[in-house]
């Protein structure tokens, strides 16, 4: 199905203060793919994600989502297709209760109250947060906020999920649940993160950004095994690929 396609061609973007955040970025993500976007702080990950649903418009180059080029009059269509989960759930949860927040998108899509209710219930059940529906957002823990933020996007039934730092600020258990949740989605997924272990678990393909350019684009395992490449991108191997630190410390310890 072609509407799950993300195609970026020669994308360049400069902020009004002339910071060149992105330079000649090109890639193509096909239906059902999970792609991790990794890179150092300030490499341009969040800026790139903001282009995928038209929050920012490119200075140069084009973005295509499915059959549509990303232009101002296609935005409503594009935003229905691309579900964006923001880095800080507090930015995403702006309504007085969880229920209202999850219903916000569907009601804006023009669904009736009954249809929206079905969507809300289903989305909250998917992320295991149905019991929170009458709570105000400030009464939720970090993990609950993240789950609800994902539900707000799922309720719009997007074809493509875009997540910015989904595991930031989560405890190990909540993070593991999040990984399980992400694995259960059949959507096309684009995930920007510093959590390389999450990328290893969820994404079969990885794009490494450095200074606004693509440093590498390929299968996750190949990239994470290339120590020189990772070092160039100011990254290091995911912990799960580094071997047991206790054993290796013993091995390297002086004999005396």
């Amino acid at each position: 199905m072609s509407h799950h396609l993300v195609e970026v061609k020669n994308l360049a973007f400069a902020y009004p203060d002339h910071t060149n955040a992105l330079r000649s970025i090109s890639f193509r993500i096909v239906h059902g793919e999970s792609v991790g976007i990794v890179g150092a702080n300030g490499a341009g990950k969040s800026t790139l994600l903001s282009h995928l649903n038209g929050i920012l418009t490119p200075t140069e180059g084009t973005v295509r989502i499915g059959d549509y080029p990303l232009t101002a009059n296609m935005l409503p269509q594009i935003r229905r297709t691309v579900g964006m989960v923001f880095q800080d759930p507090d930015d995403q949860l702006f309504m007085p209760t969880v229920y209202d927040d999850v219903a916000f998108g569907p009601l804006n899509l023009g669904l009736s109250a009954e249809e929206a209710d079905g969507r809300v219930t289903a989305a909250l059940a998917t992320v295991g947060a149905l019991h929170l529906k009458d709570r105000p957002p400030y009464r939720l823990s970090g993990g609950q906020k993240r789950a609800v933020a994902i539900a707000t996007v799922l309720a719009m039934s997007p074809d493509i999920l875009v997540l910015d730092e989904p595991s930031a600020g989560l405890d190990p258990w909540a993070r593991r649940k999040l990984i399980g949740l992400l694995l259960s989605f059949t959507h096309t997924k684009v995930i920007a993160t510093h959590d390389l272990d999450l990328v290893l678990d969820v994404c079969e393909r990885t794009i490494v950004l450095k200074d606004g350019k693509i440093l590498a684009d390929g299968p996750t395992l190949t990239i994470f095994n290339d120590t020189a490449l990772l070092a160039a991108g100011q990254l290091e191997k995911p912990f799960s690929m580094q071997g047991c630190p206790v054993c290796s410390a013993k091995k390297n310890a002086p004999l005396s």
Partner: protein
Amino acid sequence: MLKIKAQLLNLRYIDELAAGNSVIHQLNPCAKLLVTMIFLIVVTSFPKQVLAGLIPLFVFPVTIASLADLPLAPLLRRVALALPFVIFIGIFNPVLDHSTAFTIGEVAVSNGWVSFFSILIRAVLAISAALLLVATTGMEGICAALQAGKVPKVLVVQLLFMYRYLYILLEEAGRTVQAYNLRAFEDTRIGYKAAGSLIGQLLMRTLERAQRIYAAMRSRGFDGNIPFRRCLALQVKDIIFVLFWSAFFLLARMVNIPQWLGALVLEGYR
């Protein structure tokens, strides 16, 4: 704990009361908003020298608070918080107006004092009515009712967001102040030089957050309308609630009930 954090918990308290399930909580938000507005109009419409005529209006907040099963002390504390401002508004009346209103025994009470206490009583009535509205309806209900009442959506959105993000702004301010205190050691008052940049930082962060929130809203199809769950249709009990209280307020406005009761008692005594 920092004062600002304690205040934060305080702030949430009233909001949490709105989760109750009493007769008053179950009324339609539109009905409660309407009654509160009529109440405020009636309270402010009294002439400035009226004291006794205002007293019967206390029936409204007292009845609502008891029917809604709300704890009195925290509510009264919040009313008291607002009083200093009110006192400043009326404090010059006794100085400016010395004409005698009435005498109690040998003591002449000036019109200035009468109008000062009149302002005070009105403030207590108005503030308690507003607090009770929030404590029984919640901000969401009030916003939905305002929207149903054709209040401009810009104002409704402002109100809703101010309420939602007040917490986050205060939390951010609390963290900043705490970070300052941890490195200020003895003198934990914030000097004017640091205060400038602290407030500036807070403003910048607020602006950035506002942009991120707006992006999140647009991503989910925001077009200027907040889709509230519809204000449910008015039921018989809502209409009775509105009619009863409107009638009572009008009666209290037209007839000086304490005077009338006094006359009645005197009549019976004779």
